[in-house]
């Protein structure tokens, strides 16, 4: 085909989001048209979900992007890519790519996820080699110097957690990657596991070296079948290549790992509930202390870290903790993979230094709503995160900045709503979700959330006095819950009530106001 002259490789993401938008049919149509001299690769996603399925063609070392491509457009695309209406130019020059600082996600979408040689050619294993050469204390020092804080939600300093496990005396220690990613509006863990799985494996191996742990587990939610498949294959390949096993890269150090699949419980993302689940028990939250760092899986010292936290470690060890810490603001150092979702024009994964304001993220990067209507509210940090009105759009993206506005950044999910949203309904949903997912241990969470749904219904039926009841109920949940499921559900509920009180009026008055 003349249009393909000089093309050596074509990429069609195998990422689950791309697949949900028809990438498999696009890849099949391309495979049927091209000859054996062109390599077709199912890469991970670049994160530009709004352009998926995003096809890339490599010519003279430059990757040209086309998207979103529909299966019926494949023939015309291959016949004349240059002047095709879906041509976007070189992928690295698209604004969305140019404006990012890709450290954790540097290889994601670039390489064949399961091509180990390509992983290494793109900087893979550099962090692990440095870690092996420098020894345990030096690894702990680098991770501490990087300022890396847990990306799972709580923002706890990773260096301190690792040091606690490293100092614990025990014959067995564990590294557990929290891949439960239950927060709605988030998909960074999924994208890195599907698109660059060896990075997570390398990060876990480094964590093992730093702490003396020799066994790892990835607790991966069952809702991610593609990630499960890719991670299982990657573990086997890593073992064949000596990255896992009794003698990591010939160093004499041992580390191995296994993939475990969750069973559909949101609360199992909470670290102690996760450990119970991994042990084969009900996923009930454990009281702390003891800390999992001292008595975790099977009662032994355990690092539990989010996937993104662990996947960031290889680049910290490769380039140095200080280099990483040069990005960001205040105590929020390094980069954060923002997941821009919901009713947004340009949605996807965008990795950037901490510090961009919420308004820039939503209006500039996200391009406003997909519906074209005004942005009314943004939920940041998953189902337990607060709703932000436009008035708070000057908040910089950082841990302390968000907590000072009675919010949280959580796993960095950003869900945009237009002006058709009913915030009373969203508050009700937050309570409903808490009731469905409660582990049942604390009364304020288990019973309180059910009362919360009823109370919001009463308010919206015209019982204004019930507003005070709802406030009291939220105070009780905040004070009397063992974990953040019951403890933080008041964030979305109270922020909705505080910033959007008009949506809690009885239906008749709400209509009259419009």
């Amino acid at each position, binding site marked *: 085909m003349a249009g393909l002259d000089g093309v050596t490789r074509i990429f069609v993401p195998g990422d689950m989001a791309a697949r949900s938008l028809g990438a498999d049919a696009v890849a099949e149509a391309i495979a049927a048209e091209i000859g054996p001299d062109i390599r077709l690769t199912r890469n991970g996603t670049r994160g530009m979900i709004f352009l998926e399925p995003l096809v890339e063609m490599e010519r003279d070392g430059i990757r040209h992007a086309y998207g979103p491509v529909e299966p019926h457009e494949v023939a015309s695309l291959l016949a004349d890519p240059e002047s095709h209406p879906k041509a976007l130019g070189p992928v690295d020059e698209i604004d969305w790519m140019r404006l990012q600082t890709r450290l954790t996600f540097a290889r994601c979408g670039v390489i064949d996820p399961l091509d180990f040689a390509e992983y290494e050619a793109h900087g893979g294993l550099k962090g692990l080699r440095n870690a092996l050469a420098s020894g345990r204390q030096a690894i702990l020092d680098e991770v501490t110097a990087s300022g890396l804080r847990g990306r799972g939600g709580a923002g706890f300093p990773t260096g301190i957690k690792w040091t606690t496990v490293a100092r614990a005396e025990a014959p067995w220690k564990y590294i557990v990657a929290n891949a439960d990613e239950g927060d709605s509006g988030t998909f960074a863990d999924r994208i890195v596991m599907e698109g660059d799985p060896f990075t997570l494996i390398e990060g876990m191996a480094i964590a093992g070296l730093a702490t003396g742990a020799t066994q790892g587990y990835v607790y991966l939610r069952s*809702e991610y079948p593609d990630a499960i498949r890719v991670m299982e294959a990657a573990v086997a390949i890593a073992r064949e290549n000596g990255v896992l096993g009794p003698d990591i890269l010939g160093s004499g150090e041992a580390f191995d790992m*296994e993939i475990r699949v969750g069973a559909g419980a949101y609360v199992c993302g909470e670290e102690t509930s996760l450990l119970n689940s991994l042990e084969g028990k009900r996923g009930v939250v454990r009281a702390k202390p003891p800390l999992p760092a001292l008595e975790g899986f099977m009662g032994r010292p355990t690092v539990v870290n989010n996937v993104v936290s662990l996947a960031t470690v290889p680049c910290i060890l490769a380039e140095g903790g200080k280099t990483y810490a040069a990005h960001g603001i205040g105590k929020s150092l390094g980069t954060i993979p923002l997941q821009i979702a919901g009713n947004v024009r340009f949605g996807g994964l965008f990795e950037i230094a901490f510090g961009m304001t919420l308004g820039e993220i939503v209006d500039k990067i996200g391009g406003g709503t997909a519906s074209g209507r005004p942005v009314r509210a943004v939920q940041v940090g998953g189902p337990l995160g607060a709703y932000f009105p436009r008035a708070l759009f000057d908040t910089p993206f950082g841990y302390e900045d968000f907590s000072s506005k009675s919010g949280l950044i959580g796993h960095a999910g950003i869900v945009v709503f237009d002006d058709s949203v009913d915030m009373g309904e969203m508050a009700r949903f937050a309570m409903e979700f808490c009731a469905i997912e409660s582990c049942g241990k604390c009364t304020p969470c288990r019973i309180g959330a059910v009362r919360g749904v009823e109370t919001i219904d009463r308010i919206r039926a015209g019982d204004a006095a019930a507003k005070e009841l709802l406030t009291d109920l939220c105070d009780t949940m905040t004070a009397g819950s063992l974990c953040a499921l019951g403890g933080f559900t008041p964030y979305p509920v109270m922020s909705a009530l505080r910033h959007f009180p008009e949506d809690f009026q009885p239906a008749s008055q709400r209509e009259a106001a419009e």
Partner: protein
Amino acid sequence: MTTPTGSEVAEAVAQIAAMHAGREGPLLPILQDVQARFGHIPEASMQPIAEALNIGRAEVHGVVSFYHDFHTEPRGRHVVRVCRSEACQARGGRAVEEGVREALGLDWNETTADGRVTLEPVYCLGLCASGPNATIDDRPAGRLDADRIAGLVAELR
């Protein structure tokens, strides 16, 4: 799927438990394999699982009942899971929820009388920039509206 006999179940459990022997915390992987084999976790499997792991039958029961993924009754030949979470709601998810319930004549966690389809809610599929989303068995589907989901479920046999 016809109901397996007690001895079929016991035999399958013995095989599956042997495969997981020596693993730390094997109960969830065993339950997942049992469910993959029978489509649900038969009542008759609980005692043999308990015996294989040297725990009480009540404990196995407790674990099965805790997790949304485990089912003690057979489900439909196809499982349709529709995301109910916030990012999908922001993109019109409620209309998709209504549409699929109407198209199938089912409420959540119900199965059509002919055993063709089970409808389940799911709380986020990690596809939140291109919703509303659903999965049909293992196949993800994005940018849905009420008509498209109705069309997709109508194709299921």
